[in-house]
């Protein structure tokens, strides 16, 4: 009987339930019934009818067995806006800026909401690259922890208010305040500065105090002394043949990593192996930073010896006689040699330091001056404004707060209670400030102590401008209407200042103010456009604008004091560093960045104490205090005790340990709160400001084991050489360490020893020719083996049409991880949380394997981005019982998520282990109710609630529980490229399709393209003799090619 749903009918006959209608309604198909006689008589009809019955029966059973398809609502535009075509993305040029972090971006929006960040190719500074932080910034727009409107403090929580109410309260407060302080991080916006000036003019007792979460104040002060500008010069890493960095992580987090990485990589790529030339990079540090892992030589000095290390180089280069007692001998010898090299490459070298001691920075400036670098590799005609913090001013402000003389404190884009050196003092004395206003978007430690929140827009909802360097501007434009009732901080200041320059009745007052500012400012300084509107349209379209640069101030020597970092005789020293993904806690609330594995330690969801490890000469890698990965220890710094998990770090200097900043936050939403330990209150206060190390550190023995040790790569070394205890000879420490018995043969080493597979190839630049020959030999041998196949003759299967492939230049890859976050962003990859990552259930499609090679005590590092290799002879395709994974005619290994039943045979068979299985319901994309462990007790899985879902890419399926997923070579972008080419009536060009990992890379390490396109960029890259295919000998015919890693290590510096 036909099921009847009450009160619904489809026609008059249905309503009256007439007989003939009911009869026809019951029949599933319109054609007449097939009789048994027909079936048996006509043979050709027989098969069809049988199939009809079979198909119908099966289909009916399936439909009956399945659940009702949930009703989804699709609401089309009634009046479609001109620019929006549903299904086609719009790109807007904007800028990612957060304090001093800067990256010009193109924001990809779909149906009016931003979903992906790309780099802006037109930027002369970054050249189109991005960083992991920039890639993840789109997610923070959809943060469920954001303030939804202006708030007033109500006990421990917040109560809503309106902007009108808030303005009234603030005006009365402003009138009655004697001293007003506005604490902010680096602000590079000329228009925002204008707004602040209007504010401080209206309230003359107001002062703006700028500080940076990781301070560069000493560098700025030194430049002020030597050059008269309190700014950072442009460092031209591409022009430097020798780079010496004293603890400056310029590739990861120091000042402008995207810019520096792009420039640095230019000097590292090998184009011609016969005339191989690459820069020499020496890092002087104690812990293995991202930059240090890319360096050719690392000179190990304890954190307290950084001062005398700089002083020694200063002595050698300039010829001075500063005392360098306390510097270890090895470093002394190495630095002497380096000084010699520097002097011989004058004008082509670069010395930088991250020290927060003015005298050390003055010494570095003097070194650079003596080497003739100013004007060559260091350019002061375009000073960078990416750090403007002033430690002295912050200290004064904190003193004022402690004395109770500040009546009103405004905090804009800063979290001083957590990340400044005076965090604890501020937390204790903020109650003395009568009124505190925060502009924060999300609640944080400082905002939690404030009375009023006037939440700022996210940068994707804001108007603004950025003057990152003198004469180089970048605009911020909104890509979505403000999601919540927030207001731009600059506008708030203008309103409170009663500014006449802003008209609050306009729809977007700050936009008008910004335009006015540009009209009276930048428009006048150019001659290309005659009307302001055309100028503005052009600049807004490009997103970047460069006016002429000024002249360069000359170096004026200044007296260098003797107060530098003093070496300590302490047994264990600890250094603190800023990670690529967390900064100093600014990004704790971003799950993509929390889950991103730290490039060096390969840990996530917390900070881990990096302890030194060495080879005992027999068979074990022994860590400090016999600690192994995942052990818990009690770390005592000064009087503060904390329990931290440990990770063994190759290259960590003996007598030192290190731990990352930016964790242990208490108010960071439900992602970042209570993850890791806070070390911001363990900094050493130097004469100028905080120094990021501490000499009174003790590490206990193992106190336990961490429950969820979330490290994604346990294997660290790949062929490191150590000294054998018995024979004193150099042996392969990897093989000795891994084997605990020698198969009763007396020979150490195990079958298929790790180093015998073609995973990575390395070479020193001096022996390049020989090593390339060795590589070619091994490739020939592998190819010979591969040619012995039973089913031959299929080698040309993909020679017609497209054959998609990828080339990864390991000499350009610095391991920054921007590509991993870009892939997560583009492909709706779920975030699984710490517990799942510790069970090896992380879902990132693209991982960056990090291997140490060379000397076991002071190794070199190689980063290898590993994604699905799209093997033409894929071992995964053969074993799927339902054929969910198959090969396209263009060489792509495809994954049909709907077909997958989750047998995981393909994941087992994959030799590269790039397939990811949805072990639990991470996405709520299936018929089962949400029933999974959460990141932090939310009610639906992350990215399944309605706000966070807005970041999902509509072109990519969200996978259900029980389905395998993997890199698809951004097949949605390939299809988009094909459609665009088809619409334009032309063939698809190699450069039309760029994968997410390719576009996000700051150094251009990844190239995707058509292997069959002889004129394409990929084909050119595939000509290099340095190329090899990972695990070529197993005959899977991978489509991804890597290059041999060439380093420029000088063995004499290690002696």
């Amino acid at each position, binding site marked *: 009987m036909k099921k009847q749903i009450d009160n619904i009918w489809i026609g008059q006959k249905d309503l009256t339930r007439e007989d003939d209608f009911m009869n026809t309604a019951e029949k599933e198909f319109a054609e007449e019934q097939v009789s048994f006689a027909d079936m048996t008589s006509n043979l050709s009809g027989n098969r069809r009818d049988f*199939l009809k019955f*079979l*198909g119908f029966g*099966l289909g009916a059973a*399936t439909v009956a067995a399945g659940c009702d398809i949930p009703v989804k609502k699709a609401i089309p535009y009634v009046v479609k806006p001109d620019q929006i075509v549903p299904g086609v993305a719009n790109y807007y040029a904007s800028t990612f800026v957060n304090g001093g972090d800067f990256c010009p971006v193109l924001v990809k929006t779909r149906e009016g909401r931003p979903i992906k960040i790309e780099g802006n190719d037109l930027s002369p500074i970054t050249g189109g690259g991005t960083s992991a932080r920039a890639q993840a910034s789109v997610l923070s727009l959809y943060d469920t922890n954001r303030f939804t409107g202006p708030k007033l403090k109500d006990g421990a929580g917040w109560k809503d208010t309106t902007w009108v109410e808030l303005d009234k309260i603030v005006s009365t407060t402003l009138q009655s305040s004697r001293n007003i302080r506005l604490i902010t991080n680096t602000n590079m916006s000329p228009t925002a500065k204008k707004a602040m000036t209007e504010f401080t003019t209206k309230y003359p007792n107001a002062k703006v105090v700028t500080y940076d979460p990781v301070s560069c104040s000493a560098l700025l002060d030194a430049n002020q002394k030597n050059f008269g500008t309190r700014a950072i010069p442009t460092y031209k890493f591409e022009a430097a043949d020798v780079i010496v960095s004293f603890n400056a992580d310029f590739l990861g987090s120091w000042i402008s990593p995207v810019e520096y990485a792009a420039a640095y990589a230019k000097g590292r790529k090998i184009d011609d192996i016969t005339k191989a030339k690459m820069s020499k990079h020496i890092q002087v540090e104690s812990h293995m930073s991202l930059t240090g892992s890319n360096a050719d030589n690392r000179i190990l000095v304890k954190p307290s010896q950084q001062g005398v290390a700089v002083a020694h180089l200063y002595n050698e280069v300039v010829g001075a006689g500063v005392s360098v007692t306390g510097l270890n001998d090895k470093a002394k010898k190495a630095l002497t040699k380096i000084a010699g090299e520097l002097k011989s490459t004058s004008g082509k070298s670069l010395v930088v330091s991250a020290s927060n001691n003015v005298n050390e920075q003055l010494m570095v400036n003097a070194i650079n001056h003596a080497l003739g670098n100013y004007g060559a590799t260091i350019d002061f005609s375009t000073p960078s404004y990416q750090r403007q913090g002033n430690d002295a001013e912050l200290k004064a402000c904190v003193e004022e707060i402690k004395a109770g003389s500040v009546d009103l404190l405004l905090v804009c884009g800063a979290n001083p209670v957590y990340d400044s050196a005076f965090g604890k003092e501020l937390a204790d004395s903020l109650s003395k400030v009568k009124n505190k206003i925060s502009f924060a978007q999300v609640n944080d430690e400082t905002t939690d102590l404030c009375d009023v929140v006037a939440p700022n827009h996210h940068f994707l909802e804001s108007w603004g401008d950025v003057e990152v360097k003198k004469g180089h501007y970048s605009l911020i434009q909104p890509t979505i209407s403000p999601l919540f009732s927030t207001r731009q901080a600059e506008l708030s200041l203008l309103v409170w200042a009663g500014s006449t320059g802003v008209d609050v009745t306009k729809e977007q007052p700050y936009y008008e103010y910004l335009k006015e500012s540009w009209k009276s400012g930048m428009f006048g300084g150019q001659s290309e456009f005659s009307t302001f509107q055309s100028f503005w349209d052009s600049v807004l379209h490009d997103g970047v604008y460069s006016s002429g640069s000024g002249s360069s101030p000359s170096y004026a020597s200044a007296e260098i004091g003797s107060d530098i970092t003093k070496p300590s005789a302490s047994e264990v020293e600890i250094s603190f560093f800023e990670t690529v993904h967390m900064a100093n806690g600014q990004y704790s609330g971003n799950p993509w960045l929390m889950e991103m594995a730290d490039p060096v330690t390969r840990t996530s969801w917390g900070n881990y104490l990096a302890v030194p490890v060495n080879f005992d000469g027999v068979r074990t890698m022994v860590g400090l205090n016999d600690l192994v990965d995942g052990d818990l220890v009690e770390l005592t710094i000064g009087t503060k005790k904390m329990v931290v998990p440990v990770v063994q770090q190759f290259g960590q200097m003996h007598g030192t340990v290190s731990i990352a900043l930016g964790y242990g936050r208490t108010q960071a939403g439900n992602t970042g709160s209570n993850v890791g330990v806070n070390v911001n209150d363990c900094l050493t206060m130097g004469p100028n400001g905080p120094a990021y190390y501490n000499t009174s550190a003790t590490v206990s023995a193992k106190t336990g084991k961490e429950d969820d040790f979330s490290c994604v790569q346990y294997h660290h070394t790949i062929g490191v050489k150590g000294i054998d205890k018995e024979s004193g000879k150099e042996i392969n420490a990897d093989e000795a360490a891994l084997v605990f018995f020698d198969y009763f043969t007396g020979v150490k080493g195990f079958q298929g020893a790790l180093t015998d597979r073609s995973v990575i190839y390395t070479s020193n630049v001096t022996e390049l020719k020989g090593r390339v020959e060795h590589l070619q030999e091994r490739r020939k041998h592998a190819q010979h083996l591969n040619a012995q196949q039973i089913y031959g003759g299929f080698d040309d299967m993909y020679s017609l049409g497209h054959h998609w492939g990828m080339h990864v230049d390991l000499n350009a890859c610095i391991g920054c991880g921007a590509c991993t976050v870009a892939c997560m962003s583009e492909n709706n990859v779920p975030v699984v949380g710490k517990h*799942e990552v510790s*069970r*090896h*259930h992380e879902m990132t499609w693209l991982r960056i394997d990090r291997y140490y090679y060379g000397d076991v005590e002071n190794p070199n590092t190689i980063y290898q981005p590993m994604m699905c290799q799209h093997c033409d002879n894929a071992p995964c395709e*053969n*074993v*799927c*019982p*339902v*054929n969910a994974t*198959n090969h396209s005619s263009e060489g792509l290994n495809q994954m049909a998520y709907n*077909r*997958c*039943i*989750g*047998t*995981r*045979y393909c*994941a*087992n068979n994959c030799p590269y*282990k790039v397939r990811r*299985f*949805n*072990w*639990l*319901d991470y996405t709520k994309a*299936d*018929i*089962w109710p949400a*029933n*999974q462990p959460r990141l932090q007790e939310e009610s639906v899985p992350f990215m399944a609630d309605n706000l966070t879902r807005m970041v999902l890419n509509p072109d990519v399926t969200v996978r*259900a*529980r*029980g*389905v*395998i997923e993997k890199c698809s070579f951004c097949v949605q972008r390939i299809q988009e490229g094909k459609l665009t080419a088809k619409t334009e009536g032309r063939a698809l060009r190699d450069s039309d399709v760029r994968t997410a990992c390719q576009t996000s890379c700051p150094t251009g390490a990844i190239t995707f393209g058509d292997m069959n396109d002889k004129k394409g960029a990929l084909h050119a890259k595939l000509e290099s003799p340095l190329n090899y295919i990972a695990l070529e000998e197993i005959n899977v015919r991978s489509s991804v090619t890597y290059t041999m890693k060439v380093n420029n290590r000088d063995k004499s510096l290690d002696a």
Partner: protein
Amino acid sequence: MSAVVSRLRKPLITGSKTYHQITEDLISPTEKTPTKEWVIGFIISVAVLSFGVFCILWTIWVGIGSWNLNRTINWSWDITNFVWWIGIGHAGTLISAILLLFRQKWRTGVNRAAEAMTIFAVMCAGLFPLIHMGRIWLAMFILPYPNTRVHFGPISTLPYFGTYLQSVLTLLFPYYSGTQDLYRISLQ
């Protein structure tokens, strides 16, 4: 009725039993009420079975993540256990088939129990290829129904069809030997 005793070989069944007595010996357990020990054993078995059913349902509800498997090997207990139970099943088949070929008469004392055990072992094994699937509710995709996919017959369908074949064969052995018993019971 007296037992038929052969002069050429030793009697297979000792104790001078008649056919009727042997039938009684074999069938009496099905007619008597179960003993206390049997009931206790049964209750324990059912408890363990229901725990097993609960575990399977929990797996299907929550996902394979509840098993704590991980990379780089995504199988452990599931497929290993499957192979184990298939092995047990082989033991029963061995007794029925190989021992028959080698004319080992002593097998008759154990082959009923062995074949019954084999059936259950194969049933148990057949569970695993189903419950280890991430999306068991789509298990019908394994079946070779007509579809647009040209390629069919990959390696990993072998466990499914192999198990099916084995279970068919496993059922055939007790079928042939069991019809006798069923006839006897039916006479009672």
